[in-house]
């Protein structure tokens, strides 16, 4: 107690000195991060925003001038509404499937794996050792018409003789789910692993059956992980274009990412449309995430 009092007295005595000395230190510590943010986030975002408002130069195809052409947003949104819808729908499905697959996996890793925990951990992380695109291309081979999956399904007569998996929405959602699964598993695992097992035991002591304990104790304890996992899956999945490009078809499964890619890279002078699409997507996701976090959020977002 006396030590505490002493420290407090010393502190109040040296108060002004500390304030002076420490005045700039936090800023210096923040500087690298701030610079990073400015160079790689603020500047490109502002630049993208100005591009999204550009107008086409009359009679000079491919040339644009600075303008405040809000019409870009209107055309982008009205023309590609379907793509926005698909992006959010596919990403939503991938998040739900990711959760349904990921939660039991994380649960098993946290509580049931024992000495196998590290092995399971490596199995979850190992896919990251190869490129995302290569893994998706591999899925194209696995799901090909003469590949193992389709042949088996056809043999079992689950699938019609002329059926296919690649170039369908099923393949795109499966690809998204697969590619973002680790982002779902790891945060859930982290929060389950931190959960106090005595609380779960207490559930049993209070005569709750297994399901009630899970519903009222385990799940709420893991909510921060679930929230982080769903966000880490949904946000990148909504902006993804690789899965739709490699596993999807031409019209019915294209997502916003594909339009942005094509407007940027394939349509001469498509930059303003692409930029306004990017911005609309960003805004849309921001709103959705805010609503989601408000609704289910905790302050303990991992």
């Amino acid at each position: 107690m006396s030590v505490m009092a002493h420290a407090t007295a010393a502190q109040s005595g040296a108060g002004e000195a500390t304030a002076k000395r420490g005045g700039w230190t936090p800023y210096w510590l923040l500087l690298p991060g701030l610079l990073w943010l400015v160079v790689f986030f603020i500047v490109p975002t502002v630049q993208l925003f100005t591009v999204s408002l550009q107008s086409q130069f009359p009679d000079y195809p491919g040339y644009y001038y600075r303008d405040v052409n809000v019409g870009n947003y209107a055309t982008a949104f009205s023309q590609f509404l379907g793509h926005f819808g698909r992006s959010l729908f596919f990403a939503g499905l991938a998040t739900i499937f990711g959760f349904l697959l990921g939660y039991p996996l994380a649960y098993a890793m946290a509580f049931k794996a024992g000495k196998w925990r590290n092995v399971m951990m490596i199995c979850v992380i190992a896919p990251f050792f190869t490129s995302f695109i290569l893994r998706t291309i591999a899925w194209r081979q696995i799901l090909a018409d003469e590949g193992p999956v389709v042949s088996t399904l056809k043999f079992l007569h689950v699938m019609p003789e002329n059926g296919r998996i690649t170039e369908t929405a099923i393949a795109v959602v499966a690809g998204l789910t697969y590619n973002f699964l680790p982002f779902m598993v790891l945060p859930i695992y982290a929060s389950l692993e931190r959960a106090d097992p005595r609380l779960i035991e207490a559930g049993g002591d209070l005569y709750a059956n297994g399901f009630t304990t899970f519903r009222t104790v385990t799940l709420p304890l893991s909510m921060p992980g679930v929230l982080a996992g769903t966000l880490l899956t949904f946000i990148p999945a909504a902006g993804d274009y690789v899965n739709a490009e490699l596993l999807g078809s031409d019209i019915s499964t294209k997502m916003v990412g594909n339009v942005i890619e094509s407007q940027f890279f394939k349509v001469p002078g498509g930059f303003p449309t692409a930029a306004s699409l990017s911005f609309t997507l960003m805004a849309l996701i921001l709103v959705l995430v805010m609503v989601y976090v408000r609704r289910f959020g905790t302050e303990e977002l991992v």
Partner: protein
Amino acid sequence: MSPTPRFAPRDPQVQSLVRTAQAGMASRRRFLSLAGLGVSGAALAACAPPLPPAGGKAALKLPKDVSSTDKTVKWANWTAYLDYDEDAKNYPTLEAFIKDTGIAATYSEDIEDNDTYFSKIAPQLRAGQDIDRDIFTLTDWMASRVIQAQLCQPLELIRMPNAANLLEPLKDVSFDPGRNYSLTWQSGFAGIGYNKAKVGRELKSIDDLWAEDLKGKVVALTEFRDTAALIMQNQGVDITGNFTKDQIGKAFDEVSKRIADQNIRRMRGNSYLEDLKSGNAIAGIVWSGDLFILRTETEDENWEFVIPESGGTLWSDNMMVPITSTHRRNAQTLMNYYYQPDVAAQVAAWVNYVCPVQGAQEELAKTDPDLAQSPFIFPTAEYIKEKNIQSFRALTPQEDQDYSAMWAKVVGN
């Protein structure tokens, strides 16, 4: 009552640090929002259209050539476009070149389609950055864009005596008269490719591709100058003439319909070969040489290439030196090497594309007399006429932009 932080620091010194950091955060937010306002204000101020871009060409400034000291050359090309030895895992003609000249040549199959590749490198070239390639190989219409935008270096023809072996009709192309900037790598046809055994009959016209039993088993090329051109020919439009927006639009509609009806499984760039190999597709609109390579790779003689009854298209891919390359001389040495008739014959025998080198036919006749008669490698003028093989006319920049935007919709973007 305000919510208590989870780790309320007890140490007053830490507390004061936390407070300072929090204050900093607030001011950072304020700063950022102000900065954002400032920039968008500048954007608002600039509403009136500026002067149009100036015409005429700027004087070209070439980078210093280091070919004599740095003996390397890097070549970007398309898939299945250079003779390849499956066993040795190398390119025999390129190996011979390295041995002869001591120039370490590297070859990469970078190009999936013209648009994607060009959009990737153009910003770098415009900014004067090295793209780590000394030769790239692009199709006529894209070569035209590259030359007009001054993104490639002029060639020193005097150092490339073999370039004179270029076929006469290719010497004076509209986009590069006299071939000062580009040299043809290969030419080829777009037409129908299919697996005779799997399809079970012969395919002769574009309409044959839309047969009920081929539904979902057909691929088509992503560039409209291939796919839509063939369909336009099928609809009786002259693709070399002044066709109208309605005429090309009609062909685009046909493609849309075929995609919607799931006749066409997928539009692809050069990667359509993967679909044919995996069995996802057994027929499609393809490039001539690829199908012969597919025969070798899959050891299946049933892959056939035919020019549709309504006609096919002829295009060329052209080697050019990027404006920022510092190995132009090495690149020229390489181009010159591939214009030796015997080397060209060796390449032609493997790639099965139209060989642009005079004298190669005689060289090939020495080793493979049958192949030397192949109309897909050495087409005669009569063959081209009889089969109605045409080149897609050059589009004006405005048409190019309009049709590209229309086409993007067709393929779902």
